[in-house]
């Protein structure tokens, strides 16, 4: 019966596991209750694609797609939408790009760039109804093939289409069909490989569950073309629903005579049997699959003979996978030319990908070959969630490889991905964010393949476990560089000498991560660190591991939770001597890795630090006593965070450290560039004073022009930390009118020189923190209107999101996708001409490169233009000392020792990294101090003492329940924009203690097998379910 509405309820595997069938039952009940049962038809369909949003309900004719539908939502949906026509907005998708609700499912970005051929019927028809399949054009192609085409004609059509095997290897399908067709045997077999085994890939299951007839039809056409009488579908036992639906589809097809004798009244007879595999990954390998089909042990045998000459029961056998067969009917029905017009180069048609990992929209997507990796991840996948950045894309499952972020513009095809060391494979795509350890990832895949090796051939059986053993050792920090060489050699041996595809591809994850992320392997081996803070044996806790200064966060936070504020301060001073400053302006890398975020939000570590630092200042807590003097003198050029940190740690080891500062005030960028409303000057001074009291001398107004002089003056080593103080300019014209300044000059003018001149209408160019600082400072100096022009999208701004939000609260307007091209004005600036930008291809950082759009230029009126588009180092001092200085004034130093090419001269902080963060500079200063100590004959180590876990005196379990993150008081917008008084307030004492108790103590979770993160995460998950 045709009704008024067709309500499609997804009953793909993922939606069913999130209770879509219960939603359907409730729908039936509610429709009865509202007397709508005759007007509304409910249809169970196969997978619709965006699996993570299940259960999905799609309502036609409007095409409204509801997500995450709970049983309790159904009554409202029926009463509001089905009865009264009011769409239930809260259950609709939101577009990430436009931040608006999307009603029509085809307009959801997830679907917009997709092209559904294989999945055309999935989620659109009832997979258990052969009639619906026929209504949607099903079995038309089979009819056409057997009644109007010759077998040769079908094969020729397949060849012309350019379809290649979708199971992984990408062998031309038509050619394979031709091989089998040419065999003289009177008996032949077609087999469908539905032993989908790659972790994360489930398109074959989706097709079998959502549109089983499409596979049957494809196989029947193939059988007609090659001259086969029997077909077998080898499907894994883990797919019970697929088996059930396929079984019912086969019965329905037989009943209609679409399988069996004399199909469509021709001489062609064909039938299909299901064979259920016991679930061995190696049975995806065709020869192993055939052995298993025959009832033998599922191990591969060497080819030739190929299945096309001697396959099942030694008969010529055509073997294709589910997705390949699912393409067949479309090619026959619509013609090879149509199919060949889709895709790129040697890769035609579409490919279904299973998108998973660190991406907003996970699920099944079908895109034309040639779609770029970036489009797949960003446009369809919605990008990386939780404010993290994209690191790499893993394609092809355990046989595939990792593609780093700089290749986002690569069009997907068999050739391009192979060139990058990855494969299309069966279509698994795992998006990896910055928190992924590539060594650990490679280890995961090798662990999988080692346990799935059939054990027949030596390289695969024995070699993979050896590789796993080496990877295990590396992730535990016990690997050596010889291990790395052996790992590579084993990888090549296994790849080239194994019997079957499993072994030949199993080393790929290791080889591709070695190719693009070798530095990460070396970090584990040489520096015993895991940069992504995943390999638990290599760090105390994720927060500590991610802190560039390696502050023992769990220890000091736990002291705070006990109310031992002084002890917390002592712990902090061991690795970071600037708690007051970091408690305010730190980027808080620690919070981004905090496991507490698995429950609700990360612990407010920076606010806790600030509380602790203020306590220390008010109680005049002193830093540690300097070490006994050793009589050696070290000069430090620059008194920014790197210089201060280096001087402090040198003093701890007994050196006489002297900091030379060119300006009349100490602190570097912290004093000249960070406005006081973020970092009050008394706090800055208190932190510096404390360092001076631990035995560091600071010589103000003492510029250093010649490093040689310092050595001549008796300094035995020099640390250059001169920062990146030069503001970069933007090409705005030959001669600039007055009123155009750099952000560096502007901010320094305010804080060092006491200047306060600012125009009424200020335009700031840039998207980093100094742009935001300039804008907010201009507002405080009395500017009436402050606009930030940024050439990329707002989400790509490097400034911290918190700063951006506060600036907007204060009335700063941000114009993104706006690129300045010139200034307007005579003697004084009057405006800024800006081009409107559009999102272009991806750049090496994984962000979309802004390209000029066709929208006209705009002129922003401006009485002042502040260019805050970046800073750079000059490198003059080091160049003068004969050290090679690269573009942007940067100097190459050893990341561990901070040593330059000249012995005795060390460098660090922004001067070597370019503009970075305070805490990174502190870490660099500390590493330099350690290296200088070693250089001057000391032990070069600071932390031999055993780390002690801090016990607590309260009931920790009480704090594993959900508890909102504490928020400190903030100054009101009205008052704060009138002065440079601090905006962010401080926790009250009780608040700080409560907040500190939210810490999950990841430092205690470490076990022998290094399962730190897992266990704290599982604790978090457990807390969530309670």
């Amino acid at each position, binding site marked *: 019966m045709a009704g008024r509405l067709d309500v499609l309820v997804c009953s793909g595997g993922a939606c069913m596991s999130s209770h879509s069938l219960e939603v359907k039952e409730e729908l039936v009940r509610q429709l009865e209750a509202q007397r709508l049962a005759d007007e509304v038809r409910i249809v169970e369909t196969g997978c619709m694609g965006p699996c993570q949003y299940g259960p999905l309900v799609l309502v036609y004719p409007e095409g409204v797609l509801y997500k995450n539908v709970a049983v309790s939502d159904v009554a409202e949906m029926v009463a509001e939408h089905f009865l009264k026509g009011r769409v239930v907005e809260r259950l609709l998708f939101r577009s990430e790009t436009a931040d608006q609700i999307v009603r029509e499912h085809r307009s959801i970005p997830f679907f917009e760039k997709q092209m559904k051929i294989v999945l055309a019927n999935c989620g659109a028809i009832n997979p258990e109804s052969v009639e619906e399949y026929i209504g949607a054009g099903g079995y038309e192609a089979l009819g056409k093939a057997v009644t109007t085409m010759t077998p040769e004609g079908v094969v020729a059509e397949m060849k012309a289409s350019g379809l290649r095997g979708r199971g992984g290897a990408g062998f031309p399908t038509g050619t394979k069909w031709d091989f089998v067709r040419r065999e003289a045997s009177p008996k032949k077999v077609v087999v469908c490989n539905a032993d989908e085994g790659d972790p994360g890939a489930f398109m074959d299951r989706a097709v079998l569950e959502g549109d089983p007839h499409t596979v049957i039809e494809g196989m029947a056409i193939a059988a007609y073309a090659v001259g086969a009488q029997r077909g077998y579908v080898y499907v894994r036992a883990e797919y019970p629903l697929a088996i059930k639906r396929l079984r019912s589809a086969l019965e329905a097809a037989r009943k209609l005579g679409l399988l069996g004798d004399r199909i469509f009244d021709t001489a062609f007879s064909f039938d299909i049997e299901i064979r259920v595999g016991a679930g*061995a990954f*190696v049975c995806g390998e065709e020869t192993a699959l055939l052995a298993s089909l025959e009832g033998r*042990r599922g*191990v591969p*045998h*060497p080819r*030739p003979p190929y299945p096309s000459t001697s396959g099942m029961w030694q008969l010529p056998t055509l073997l294709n996978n589910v997705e390949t067969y699912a393409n067949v009917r479309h090619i026959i029905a619509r013609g090879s030319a149509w199919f060949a017009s889709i895709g790129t180069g040697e890769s035609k048609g579409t490919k279904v990908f299973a998108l998973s990992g660190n991406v907003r929209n996970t699920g099944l997507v079908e895109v034309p070959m040639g779609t770029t990796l970036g489009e797949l991840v960003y446009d369809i996948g919605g990008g990386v969630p939780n404010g993290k950045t994209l690191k790499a894309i893993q394609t092809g499952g355990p046989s595939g490889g990792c593609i780093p972020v700089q290749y986002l513009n690569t069009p997907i095809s068999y050739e391009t991905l192979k060139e990058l060391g990855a494969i299309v494979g069966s279509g698994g795509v795992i998006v990896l964010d910055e928190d992924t350890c590539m060594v650990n990832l490679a280890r995961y895949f090798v662990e999988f393949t*080692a*346990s*799935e*090796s*059939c*054990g*027949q*051939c*030596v*390289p695969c*059986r*024995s*070699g*993979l*476990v*050896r590789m796993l*053993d080496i990877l295990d050792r590396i992730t535990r920090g016990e690997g050596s560089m010889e291990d790395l060489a*052996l790992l590579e*050699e*084993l990888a090549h*041996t296994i790849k*080239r*000498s*194994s*019997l079957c595809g499993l072994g030949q591809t199993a080393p790929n994850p290791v080889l591709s991560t070695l190719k693009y992320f070798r530095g990460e392997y070396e970090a584990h081996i040489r520096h015993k660190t895991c940069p992504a803070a995943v390999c638990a044996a290599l760090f105390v806790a994720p927060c500590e591991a991610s802190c560039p200064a390696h502050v023992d966060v769990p220890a000091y936070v736990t002291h705070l939770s006990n109310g031992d504020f002084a002890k917390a301060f002592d712990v902090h001073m061991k690795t970071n001597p600037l708690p007051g400053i970091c408690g305010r302006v730190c980027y808080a890398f620690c919070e981004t890795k905090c496991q507490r975020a698995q429950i609700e939000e990360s612990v407010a570590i920076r606010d806790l630090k600030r509380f602790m630092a203020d306590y220390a200042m008010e109680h005049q807590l002193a830093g540690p006593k300097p070490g006994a003097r050793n009589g050696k003198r070290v000069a430090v050029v620059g008194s920014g965070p790197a210089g201060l940190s280096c001087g402090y740690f040198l003093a701890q080891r007994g050196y006489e450290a002297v900091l030379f500062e060119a300006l009349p005030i100490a602190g570097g960028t912290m004093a000249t560039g960070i406005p006081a409303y973020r970092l009050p000057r008394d706090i800055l001074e208190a932190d510096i004073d404390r360092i001076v009291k631990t035995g560091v001398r600071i010589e103000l107004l003492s510029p250093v022009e010649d490093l040689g002089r310092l050595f001549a003056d008796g300094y035995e080593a020099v640390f250059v930390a001169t920062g990146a103080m030069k503001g970069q300019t933007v090409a705005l014209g030959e001669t600039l009118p007055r009123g155009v300044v750099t952000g560096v000059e502007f901010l320094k003018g305010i804080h060092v020189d006491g200047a306060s001149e600012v125009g009424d209408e200020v335009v700031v160019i840039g998207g980093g923190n100094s742009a935001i600082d300039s804008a907010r400072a201009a507002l405080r100096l009395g500017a009436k209107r402050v606009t930030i022009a940024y050439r990329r999208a707002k989400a790509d701004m490097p400034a911290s999101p918190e700063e951006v939000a506060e600036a907007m609260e204060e009335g700063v307007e941000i114009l993104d996708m706006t690129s300045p091209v010139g200034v307007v004005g005579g003697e004084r600036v009057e405006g800024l001409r800006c081009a409107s930008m559009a999102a272009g291809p991806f750049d090496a950082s994984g962000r979309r490169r802004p390209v000029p759009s066709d929208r006209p230029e705009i002129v922003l009126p401006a009485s002042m233009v502040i260019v805050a588009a970046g800073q750079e180092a000059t490198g003059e001092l080091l160049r003068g000392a004969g050290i090679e200085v690269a573009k942007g004034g940067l100097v190459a130093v050893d990341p561990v020792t901070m040593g330059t090419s000249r012995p005795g001269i060390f460098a660090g902080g922004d001067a070597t990294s370019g503009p970075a963060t305070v805490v990174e500079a502190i870490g660099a200063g500390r590493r330099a101090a350690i290296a200088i100590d070693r250089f001057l004959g000391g032990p070069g180590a600071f932390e031999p003492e055993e780390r002690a876990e801090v016990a607590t005196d309260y009931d920790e379990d009480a704090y594993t329940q959900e508890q909102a993150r504490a928020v400190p008081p903030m100054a009101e917008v009205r008052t704060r924009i009138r002065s440079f008084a601090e905006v962010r307030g401080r926790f009250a004492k009780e608040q700080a203690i409560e907040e500190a108790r939210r810490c999950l103590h990841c430092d205690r979770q470490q076990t022998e097998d290094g399962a730190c993160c897992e266990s704290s995460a599982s604790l978090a998950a457990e807390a969530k379910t309670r």
Partner: protein
Amino acid sequence: MLRVVCVSGRGGEDAVGLGECPVVRDLADGGDLVDKLRVKIDGRTILAAPGKTILEVAEENGIHIPTLCHLDGLRDVGACRLCIVDLYGQLVTSCTTKVADGMEIGTQTETVRAYRRTILELLFAEGNHVCSFCVSNGGCELQDLACELGMHSVRVPYTYRRERVDATHPRFLIDRDRCVLCGRCVRVCQEVEGAHTWGFAERGVTARVITDLAVPWGTAESCTSCGKCVEVCPTGAIARKGASNAEMRKHPELVAELTERRARG
């Protein structure tokens, strides 16, 4: 004697410029016309009968390729990968790859030798191959291979597998710690004896040979106690009871004799 006829029509019997002849026939042994293929092994041009494997052709021509799972008289499975050779840059097992006209094969290239050695190291590391305590010391194919391939050390750590010796059979025993999973016992039992006593169980590193449905050998009802598995086992894994250190000598060549005799009837 090999007499060669060129059938390309470009000359008579004396046209032995093999390089120019597309098809060559061998008139030896009564003059049967058998198409011969030309292959190049290690730079030598060799005439080969179609249907033969690279290994067979090499051996007929005195070119030695190391093997372990291969045994004349048994079906080849290509499991040990020691007989790999270079074929146009690809590595293929010579025991399972048939010769084709014009093939250029390298049996001793740098890569091939290095990979063979690595594979052998892996074999040594996965078991307990301590020769001085082995019944087959001095008569062991694995030991011979180590000498032949110049494997003087094993770079990966030994796993020191600890499997229980199955000595439940009245005459034989199996020490799985010395098993290299070549599968010769499984094949001889299946293909020659027809008893199907031996089989494989499990997978990956836990794969092992079993008797019947993984019962103690002595209780395996299908076993005929013929002893063929003992003779074909390349190491000291399957041995006669009572043999002491270095006393076990095996005769795998018996299988080929047996199958030949059977073929003759």
